[in-house]
């Protein structure tokens, strides 16, 4: 145990985490040159493209130092606020953290919140200034920021470049000398923390864990404390580039277990593994059954693909336990599923994975957060779908989720950011100068207000110099109304939205305008209206089409024309009929495109 080091890397997106990890893997010969491909750890295409880690990963390296062999377990954490719970569990599995800061960018909000998590868990922090060889590197300034933030010594900050490998030996030395070896009692009952799980189509669900106390052997009957389920450990081992089976794992080790579980729902991140025959007294603290916060309807493009969509969602869920879904029906879109996501990025990821991995493009309805409605008769409803919103007359009050947001930016953008947050019904809690050029703002904001375009707005008004992080705090009552969209008097349920009364009119106007661009002209006039109850708050009109005919249709025109009309027909087949109005699928995404 003395020669084990368990650590993670805390870094903002694009600050070079994956590249640095690649250097560590190379230097320890964990991965052969032949298998080296940029950013080994981000092994989903989507992760490489977006430059973010979606799933946690873990990898074991063996490093020789002064004649002694050390085992390093690097636990890579997801890099987005949607996955902050997973991050907290990964951090809880470590004794140390490399704090990686881009010398050209400085510390970002995301980094700070994860850093605080690491400090809360008593992790030893090794600060590293990365990308020091880049033009525009502000090495001293960034070091000052780090010193201010964690109160470390200036000299303890390592200068590095993941690109050239500069500083890597210093990082190895720091890992060995500064990060404590794991403590734990191999004689005590087994106590291991699950920090992630993946689905493998041949092996079933593979859970990643860190042993705190005791020993786990192949063939043991293990018990998952929070779910209460027991399984036989078919295989245990450590994570190299591939799974590396071992007869047993002991306190301090990081590894995997395969039990024949087929559904990742059965394994909860944060759960504790113990032995059925000799259970530990209590579970490891911090377990939360994560609930989805953002909901949207997902519908197949072709109605007949409904069952295929269900299969695809089920397969996705094997690997993504935080995705939930249940069938729903829309008058406009037919049969589909109401899905719950951790956040908007999670929604986008699910949408993209459906499209790429399962060739199942979908129509997504207006995303909404989850509300709690209290009716006058005392009934309490969890609202995941605007269509479930009770009649206003029967409504006592509605509560909506609030978040606490941290925004770090430079002082020149404070005014614009305050205005943005106030416009989004935010309350300023605190304003702190971290350094003369960096301000941290804290706000309480309704989650619904950041679901759509908040982050994009923030980025554009700060020219990219603002970072954003949040945590869910509570539910508070709000004056929420249901805004409906009508096409020639027919309600389009898939476009209904729950929204604060003060914003409803403006939102309705913008949505009608966008729909006017997205719905093609037809033989008759189309009225697009936004309504709250019976009251129309916005209207746009699409004039009737007067002509749809080719002037010439002779020998040379026929083929080209036929192909053009066939293409139109294919497009039309994918349109949805609302009353007499034909609505193309992209119109259902209008809300997401309102700012384009």
């Amino acid at each position, binding site marked *: 145990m003395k020669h084990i080091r368990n650590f993670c890397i805390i870094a903002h997106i694009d600050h070079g985490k994956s590249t640095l990890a690649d250097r560590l893997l190379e230097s320890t010969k964990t991965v052969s040159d032949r298998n080296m491909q940029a950013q080994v750890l981000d092994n989903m295409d989507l992760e490489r493209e977006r430059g973010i880690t979606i799933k946690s990963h873990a990898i074991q390296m063996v490093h020789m130092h002064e004649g002694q062999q050390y085992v390093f377990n690097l636990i890579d954490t997801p890099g987005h606020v949607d996955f902050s719970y997973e991050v907290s569990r990964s951090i809880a599995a470590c004794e140390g953290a490399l704090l990686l800061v881009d010398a050209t960018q400085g510390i970002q909000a995301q980094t700070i919140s994860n850093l605080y998590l690491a400090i809360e868990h008593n992790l030893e922090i090794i600060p590293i200034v990365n990308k020091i060889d880049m033009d525009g590197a502000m090495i001293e300034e960034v070091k000052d920021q780090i010193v201010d933030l964690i109160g470390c010594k200036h000299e303890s900050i390592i200068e590095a470049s993941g690109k050239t490998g500069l500083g890597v030996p210093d990082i190895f030395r720091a890992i060995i000398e500064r990060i404590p070896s794991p403590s734990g009692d191999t004689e005590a009952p087994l106590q291991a923390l699950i920090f992630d799980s993946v689905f493998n189509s041949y092996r079933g669900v593979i859970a990643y864990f860190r042993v705190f106390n005791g020993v786990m052997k192949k063939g043991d009957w293990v018990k998952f404390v929070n779910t209460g389920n027991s399984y036989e450990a078919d295989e245990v081992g450590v994570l190299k580039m591939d799974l590396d089976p071992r007869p047993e794992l002991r306190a301090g080790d990081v590894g995997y277990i395969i039990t024949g579980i087929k559904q990742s729902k059965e394994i909860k991140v944060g759960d504790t593994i113990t032995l059925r025959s000799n259970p530990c007294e209590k579970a490891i603290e911090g377990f939360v059954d994560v609930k989805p916060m953002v909901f949207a309807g997902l519908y197949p493009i072709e109605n007949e693909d409904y069952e295929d969509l269900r299969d695809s969602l089920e397969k996705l869920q094997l690997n993504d336990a935080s995705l939930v879904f249940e069938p729903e029906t829309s008058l406009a879109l037919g049969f589909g599923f109401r899905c719950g996501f951790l956040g908007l990025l999670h929604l986008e990821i699910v949408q993209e994975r459906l499209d790429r991995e399962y060739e199942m493009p979908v129509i997504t309805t207006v995303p909404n957060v989850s509300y709690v409605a209290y009716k006058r008769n005392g009934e309490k409803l969890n609202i995941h779908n605007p269509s479930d919103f009770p009649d206003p007359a029967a409504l006592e009050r509605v509560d909506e989720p609030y978040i606490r947001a941290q925004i770090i930016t430079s002082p020149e953008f404070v005014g614009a950011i305050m205005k943005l947050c106030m416009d989004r019904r935010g309350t300023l809690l605190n304003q702190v100068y971290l350094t003369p050029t960096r301000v941290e703002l804290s706000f309480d904001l309704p989650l619904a207000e950041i679901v759509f375009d908040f982050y994009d707005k923030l980025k554009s008004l700060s020219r990219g110099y603002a970072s954003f992080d949040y945590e869910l705090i509570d539910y508070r009552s709000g004056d929420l109304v249901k805004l409906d969209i009508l096409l020639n008097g027919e309600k389009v349920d898939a476009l209904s939205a729950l929204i604060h009364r003060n914003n409803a009119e403006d939102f309705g106007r913008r949505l009608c305008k966008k729909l006017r661009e997205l719905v093609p002209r037809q*033989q008759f006039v189309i009225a697009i209206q936004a309504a709250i109850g019976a009251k129309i708050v916005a209207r746009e009109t699409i004039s009737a*089409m*007067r*002509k*749809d*005919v*080719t*002037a*010439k*249709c*002779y*020998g*040379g025109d*026929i*083929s080209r*024309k*036929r192909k053009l*009309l*066939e293409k*139109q*027909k*294919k497009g*039309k*087949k994918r349109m949805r009929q609302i009353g007499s109005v034909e609505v193309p699928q992209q119109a259902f995404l209008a809300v997401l495109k309102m700012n384009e």
Partner: protein
Amino acid sequence: MREAELRRDFFGAHSGSSPAHGSPPTPITSLYLGGGTPSVLTPPQWEQLFEALYRLFPIASDAEVTLEANPDDLDADRLAALRQTPVNRLSIGIQSFRDQDLSWMNRAHNTAQARTCLDLAAAAGFRHVNADLIYGSPGLDDAAWMANLQQLFTANPDHISAYALTVETGTALAHFVRQGKSPNTDDEQASRQFQQMEVAMAEAGYVHYEISNFCRPGAFARHNTSYWTGEPYLGLGPAAHSFIGNHRSWNVSHNIKYVTQIEAGLLPSESEQLSPADQLNESLMTGLRTTWGVDLEALQVRFGERAFAAVASLAQPWLDGGQLALRDGHWFLTASGRFFADRIASDLFLVEEDAALVEMGSEGAAKPVLNMERTRFWECKG
């Protein structure tokens, strides 16, 4: 000429009755000579051209031989020379009788030439003349459009093609419209002028037989109608299209590439085989553009019951809406449907998985879906 030689067996070879096998091929009933020719060719060249065509192909003695020409190509001398050739029909790109329209359209001729060429053609003895007009163009108000039509009626051509101005993508006009240098076409105006034209044409005694075509009773353009009835045709020259059975081919449009290939004895053409669904869709598209409509029985026999049932259910909303009508076993576009011919045809198309519903009937039982011998529905009242 070279291409004509390379393709001399076109009609025979494909129908399986090449001259070598004894049975004579069906004679060609129409020839169409495209734009620009009259001002380019000299009388001896004309003679050479027709000598070759008549030598290489079996051309019927009463074939319709149309020459496309612009008003500025046609003076008395040229017309007199043309009368000596087999050309018996002229198609003249009048477009408008107003200088402002002609200069906007970049035409080489002026109003005076537009007026006189029709008289000159008649004087030279051409009894069959088509005049092209354009409506829906910027600056052409309804009164000016009616005046253009009335002016044309006084010259009394036996055929009129009237086209709504279309901004084709990739053209200079499309570019100007995009840049805002030219106004875009106004569909409202085009639709109104189309309706005015239908009334005026009927009053002047012209039969409306295709979206953009009108004629004196019986004076249908034989050549153009053959495109819609599915008869074989052979196009010679760059970009020309040919069609026989279910096979369509087209020459490259690049002049130099075309010439180089032909010189090398090669046919510079690409082709496609029309699938059963393609043939069905084309029949609907072309048939609905005409006064003869679509013969439902022929449709069923040629493409099968299941395909017909599918198309019929797609047609129902348009029948209910009154844009499409059913009479004597035919579908045809009503006055309110004509200006939406593309939309309606496209709606009736069978594509993707529905294409599999088409089952071709035996060739012997098949008859054209468009039958020119039948009723002209657009003239029916009520």
